[in-house]
């Protein structure tokens, strides 16, 4: 266990409020989208921390890919929310 893995584990706790908002009965679709976008940013950081903590260089590429795909996903969902959903 090192400081990077500890940070990643604690950071994973911040996904709990995101999940509660996402699955909350009173949450609107926009609230769920916001929690999804926050969770994406947190997950990207978790990947970076896990990459350093485990010493696996390939996880850095995962974080980079997730950062790019989070943008695409967020924009696609926003676009659909605005017009069709």
């Amino acid at each position: 266990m090192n400081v990077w893995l500890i940070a990643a584990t604690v950071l994973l706790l911040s996904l709990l409020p995101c999940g509660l908002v996402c699955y909350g009965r009173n949450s609107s679709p926009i609230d769920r989208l916001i929690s999804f976008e926050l969770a994406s940013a947190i997950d990207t950081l978790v990947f970076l921390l896990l990459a350093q903590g485990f010493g696996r260089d390939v996880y850095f590429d995962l974080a980079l890919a997730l950062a790019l795909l989070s943008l695409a996903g967020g924009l696609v969902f926003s676009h659909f929310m605005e017009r069709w959903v």
Partner: protein
Amino acid sequence: MSVRDIVVALLLFGAVAVELACALALFVVKDSFDRLHFLGPAATLGPLLVVTALVVENSLSTNGVKAILTGGLLLLTGPIVTHATARAARVRQFGHWEPLPFEEVDRD
């Protein structure tokens, strides 16, 4: 524990605190438009602290460069996603995003 380890630990502590605060805000703040503001620190300050910690640890090795690229992507894409979501939320609420008369600051 070296000075570098202490610096890294402090940076990571700050990053985790920022992200936890943003996630907590998502839960306690009720209005969607107010909630959106907390994507800002999560996509700017949090990644900045994590990337700084990684660069302190790895310097400008391949991993350090990848971390900088990832942090830079989060920093640049955060405002785009925030704007797109805000616009979608506004259109869903009012049918259009255009300002209402009482929102214009130039109006007396």
